[in-house]
């Protein structure tokens, strides 16, 4: 990896003022993203992820701070930035009334391809994204996964050196999610730089070389995935009790045995606890102890900390309950993607 930076931002600020209140959507964010790397921006709903991406993609003007993409200032040199970056927004930004082919053809023409070259480019992208058969259909008839793919294809028409992906896999099934991940990996192998936002720690973990956790418009931690997890404790134990009523007692026993604080998940059956470095032996005794107390534990796993736990550790607050951030207290790796073929 070269040390030149694809994206660098200092003190980015964006406040939205409505009649009564000021939302500090982004409140002083610094970023340094090395060329050829994947950078993950991790945070819950409303953290400011989309706002950061829109400022970097020249769609929003920062209130304060500066940002450069491949050395071009996003405000003063906006057109140079636009020629170098591709953006896949959080919500599909293709024209639903047009067909997949027409959408790509239009973009290719807008990027300056001559008619014949535009057609070749469109055909190649449709095939690569497994959309050749659907090319003649209006995008409004596409499934969620197909929409994501046409949207991604649309951002790759000009083979951008820097790609911004705003929650590229939210709402996708495991298979489609893996397809998107594979696409990102191929692009990065070929030298692109990717900034992706996500609410899933395991997605950031799978793809990103470095991760910044943001909340309320501020960066609260930055590092590699393992650094972030280490800050929370190496491992965690996750369990689900059969009876909701048993959870409190199970939590007491776990706390006593491991000597660690227990997190109750938003699933009323679930609880989890960090395993302290010296407490690995105690974990072995946990299941028998629970059985002795007459508590049935149908699910038990040892794993890495979840986003919930990372968040709790970093902010002292759990994620809001309505988070789709992957079944609050289950271990990230075991959720649903692990069985998919690689």
């Amino acid at each position, binding site marked *: 990896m070269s040390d030149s930076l694809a994206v660098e931002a200092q003190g980015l600020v964006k406040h939205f003022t409505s009649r009564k209140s000021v939302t500090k959507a982004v409140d002083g964010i610094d970023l340094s993203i090395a060329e050829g790397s994947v950078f993950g921006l991790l945070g819950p709903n409303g953290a400011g992820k989309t706002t950061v991406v829109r400022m970097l993609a*020249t769609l929003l003007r920062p209130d304060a701070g500066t940002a450069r993409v491949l050395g071009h200032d996003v405000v003063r040199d906006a057109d*140079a930035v636009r020629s170098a*970056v591709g953006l896949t*927004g959080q919500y599909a930004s293709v024209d639903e009334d047009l067909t997949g082919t027409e959408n790509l053809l239009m973009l290719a*023409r807008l990027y300056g391809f001559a008619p014949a070259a535009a057609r070749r480019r469109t055909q*190649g992208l449709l095939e690569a994204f497994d959309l050749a058969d659907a090319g003649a259909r*209006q995008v409004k008839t596409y499934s969620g996964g197909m929409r994501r793919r046409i949207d991604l294809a649309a951002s790759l028409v000009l083979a951008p050196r820097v790609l911004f992906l705003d929650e590229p896999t939210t709402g996708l099934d495991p298979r489609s999610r893996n397809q998107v991940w594979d696409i990102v990996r191929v692009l990065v192998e*070929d030298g692109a730089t990717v900034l992706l936002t996500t609410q899933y720690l395991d997605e950031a973990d799978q793809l990103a070389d470095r991760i910044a956790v943001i909340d309320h418009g501020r960066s609260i931690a930055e590092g590699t995935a393992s650094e972030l997890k280490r800050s929370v404790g190496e491992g965690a134990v996750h369990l689900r009790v059969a009876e909701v009523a048993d959870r409190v007692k199970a939590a007491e026993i776990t706390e006593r045995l491991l000597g660690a604080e227990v997190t109750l998940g938003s699933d009323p059956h679930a609880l989890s606890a960090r395993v302290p470095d010296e407490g690995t032996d105690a974990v072995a005794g946990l299941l028998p102890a629970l059985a002795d107390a007459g508590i049935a534990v149908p699910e038990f796993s040892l794993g890495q900390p979840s986003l919930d736990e990372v968040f709790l550790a970093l902010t002292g607050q759990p994620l809001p309950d309505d988070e789709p951030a992957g079944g609050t207290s289950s271990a990230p790796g075991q959720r649903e993607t692990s069985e998919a073929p690689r």
Partner: protein
Amino acid sequence: MTTTLRDAVALAERPARPSPLSTTLTFGWRALLKIKHVPEQLFDVLVTPVIFTLMFTYLFGGALAGSTQAYIQFLLPGILVQTILFVTIYTGYTLNTDISKGVFDRFRSLPIWRPSPVVGALLGDTVRYTVAAVITITLGLILGFRPDGGLGGVLLGVLLLLVFAFALSWTFIILGLLVRSPNAVMGVSMIVLMPLTFASNVFVDPETMPSGLRAFVSVNPVSHLVTAVRGLMAGSPDATEIVWVLIASVVLTAVLGPIAMRIYRSKS
């Protein structure tokens, strides 16, 4: 998938930046594609003039002008103006739809001449105007409209009308940029256009109106436009009114165009 993907994305040669003309034409092409895929959007354009022409000619023609034949000579140019003015609302409506759906975000993240999406959309609107004009005039001819200005007079009348319509479009582009939803654009535009077209000389000669209303009608820009178009189609062009319309078009464009583009640029 990996190899095809790699080949598909790799780009041997980056194309040169396209000219403003080329990107504008591409957006015009998009507008045509949208008409092709969503032909319902032409429905209003087709039905409204037909209903208005039939209703006014047969319901009121006898009472207002003595005979339907006499009335349609007077009415048709007015209906044409009314129809085209209402079609301009679609400019704001479609723009607002694009913005609320996020397509505009992609356009705004492209390295292109910034006004081209808007100007291209205006080009595409020409198709709607033409369809509306052809339908209205054809129906008129069937009902007995016999313009003394001949084909040349009718074409010049339509041309003048289109010039004014493009200038007026900027109003609706501004509305489309400012208002929250596509339906709100429709609503607000109707409130503006309804009084302008009805309190004008489209349907009746203002001579019979009470003096307060008559004063409004005589300053109403729509009245000037209708008189100018009528004159051209009737073979007796009224130079003052034509110049008035042309000046109004230039002023509208010169003032509203830059304002619209300013709002468009700063939109977040």
